[in-house]
């Protein structure tokens, strides 16, 4: 009895021991990556709801032209460490089954996807709230920079508000 409960405890601890995961994708995030990620959760039959947020590059009007792409760079080591902290924090706050974060690096054209946040839970509320919180914190706290490339060959550094 004691042995079994000790084993269970170890398993629990093991499960909780998560390490930083890569969140970066070179170039745009393909819609097929998203459907594949969804399909991967079909075996997790304790999930009742998934919440997904996708960031898409807008063709904003700038002085002298229209945005045609955003070029993303990051302080990668720090971003991965920070993403890990956010991840742990959000996992501890909401009863989630799964959480996935992907962010583009390099050039992403207008109309393409640059951010993919995906949370799953038994009930919808946790998945929805966690997803929204993740998006806010990713934008606010991750050292990632987007340079908007304008079609007259100028560029503008974005700034999240």
């Amino acid at each position, binding site marked *: 009895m004691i042995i079994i409960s000790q084993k269970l405890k170890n398993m629990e601890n093991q499960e909780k021991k998560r390490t930083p995961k890569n969140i970066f994708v070179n170039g745009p995030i393909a819609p097929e990556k998203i459907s594949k990620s969804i399909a991967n959760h079909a075996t997790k039959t304790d999930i009742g709801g998934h919440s997904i947020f996708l*960031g898409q590059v807008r063709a904003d009007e700038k002085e002298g032209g229209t945005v045609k792409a955003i070029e*993303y*760079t*990051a*302080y990668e*080591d*720090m*971003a991965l*460490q920070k993403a890990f902290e956010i991840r742990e924090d959000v996992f501890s706050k909401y009863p989630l089954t799964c959480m996935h974060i992907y*962010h583009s690096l390099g050039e992403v054209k207008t109309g393409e996807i*640059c*951010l993919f946040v995906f949370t799953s839970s038994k009930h919808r509320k946790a998945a929805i709230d966690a997803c929204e919180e993740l*998006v806010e914190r*990713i*934008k*606010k*706290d*991750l*050292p*990632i*920079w*987007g*340079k908007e490339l304008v079609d007259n060959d100028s560029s503008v*550094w*974005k*700034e*999240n508000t």
Partner: protein
Amino acid sequence: MKVLAFGKIAEIVGNQEIEIDNLPNTEVLLGYLRQQYPQLQNMKFTLAVNKKQVSGNTEIPRGAEVALLPPFSGG
């Protein structure tokens, strides 16, 4: 020590990475950088020492990696 520059600041500094002699704290470092790169004087940015964001004057360990971080714009 190593100084990393990102985003708009990398464009101003002209380099992603510069090696400089060890400086004792972030105030001294900022003074040095603003003298070397006057354009930094009008720029908003924060610092990270060994990948942790800091605020106020902070000691810089020998051989540390200090990063100059303009406002984030991921997502």
